[in-house]
């Protein structure tokens, strides 16, 4: 039995100290995921609190068929989806706090990279929820496509299909932006 399994067993026996440890282990991941999906800090904090409360209430029902991380991720994703449905308003969001400081690296290069990343993630944020969530879970949470399917409760083939559609939409957005940028440059030159 792994340490994680033992920790969960202790939680199932109602040991509060074990909950503390479990939450400490997963709070960063859960918060980051909630923040990425909701793009609002207060909403993300509330969602993760709700998620941990749900874990606390339902830990006895966790049978270990999937990993605890997958189980927690599913809870967080479902709570975030509920909040999105309730709010229906996407808020502007910055991922800056999550990024490491530039430090001793090449500043110019890092700025360029950051701009590129921000552009790409801005495209991702413009995707429909249906396509955005698989992107976040797969590329951001580094979950396999089968795990993404398990969390979103869809077949793995559907995950592939959604990622493919997302890829096509991102490609189209990038093409549109480049065309727009080209027109601007043209106008400026003239």
């Amino acid at each position, binding site marked *: 039995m792994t340490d994680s399994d033992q920790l969960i067993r202790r939680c199932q026996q109602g040991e*509060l100290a074990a*909950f*503390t440890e479990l*939450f*400490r282990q997963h*709070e*960063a*991941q859960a*918060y*980051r995921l909630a923040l990425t999906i909701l793009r609002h800090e207060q909403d993300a*904090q509330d969602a*993760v*609190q709700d998620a*941990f*409360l749900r874990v*606390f*209430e339902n830990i006895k029902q966790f049978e270990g068929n999937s990993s605890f991380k997958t189980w927690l991720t599913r809870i967080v994703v479902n709570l975030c989806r509920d909040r999105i449905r309730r709010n229906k308003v996407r808020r502007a969001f910055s*991922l800056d706090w*999550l*990024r*490491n400081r530039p430090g001793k690296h090449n500043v110019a290069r890092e700025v360029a990279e950051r701009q*590129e*990343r921000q552009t*790409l*993630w801005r495209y*991702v944020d413009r995707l429909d929820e249906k396509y955005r969530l698989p*992107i976040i879970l797969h*590329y*951001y949470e*580094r979950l396999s*496509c089968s795990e993404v399917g398990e969390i979103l409760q869809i077949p*793995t*083939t559907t995950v*592939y*299909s959604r*990622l*493919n559609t997302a*890829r096509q939409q*991102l*490609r189209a957005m990038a093409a549109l932006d480049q065309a727009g940028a080209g027109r601007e440059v043209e106008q400026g030159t003239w």
Partner: protein
Amino acid sequence: MVNPERQPRPLTCAAVETNLVAYLKDGLSPDLEAAVRVHLLQCPACADLVQEARELDAALYAAAPRRLDRLPSDLSARFQEDVYRRMRRALVFQRTRAFTGRVVTVLVTFLFVVGLGLMVGPWLRYLATVDAPPTPPAVASQGLDILPSPAPALLPPTAAALPVVPTATLPVEYHSPADSVRALLEAAVAGNDDRVQRLLVGTRTRARRVRARLEPCRGALDVSRLHYSTVRYETNVAGVRLRYDNRRVGEVKLLLREDGYWYLHYLHYDSLDSILGDGCLALP
């Protein structure tokens, strides 16, 4: 496993694009993957598409913010505090709910037991009365004088006159259905309700009904005109058919119990009108 001798089927460019992500993520079947590979070797446009998809894939991985093992300490502390406050509240709620549930369970059980006692108590008292072996009447018969012995044969049904006993005291041996019927009639005519009830097997309502039907017989029954025949239905069920002037007036069903006595089970009358009209067992 891919069969090397089998040629993969040719794919269109649209099919390759549809399966692009599955191809990149190694999610295709071996056959389909081989077909995509063959197509890519022959189609530069699709090869470019795959390359572009690979680059986007890598860019998305790279663009994802770095993973943090820990939250900033202030955020973590605030977070833990909020979560624990809500957990404590939930715990209190759970315990309160559990306590309330236990109290309600105990209360419901108590009420159930009390209710059951109220309902079953009279029944038990009644059954104790019924189960007790019938005892000879304490008082002498005031009505019918019927000779109980010898007991009539049970099968086949035969019609025979109920013998009249001139003596006032009757030895009550309920070893045959006819004896029991005689005793019932005797008790009913004599107005000995306790004895009638002791002879009955069934609910108190049924006992009351039988008594009510036999009640009008008091002093109005001419026994010399009353005949009976005994029918054995089962090993422990028999019937005594009553005839008055050779006219069938009713039947008494009897049950042989473990103590060897025949107890009255129920009365059946062919015609309710005749009973009401005559006020007794279809007496003229």
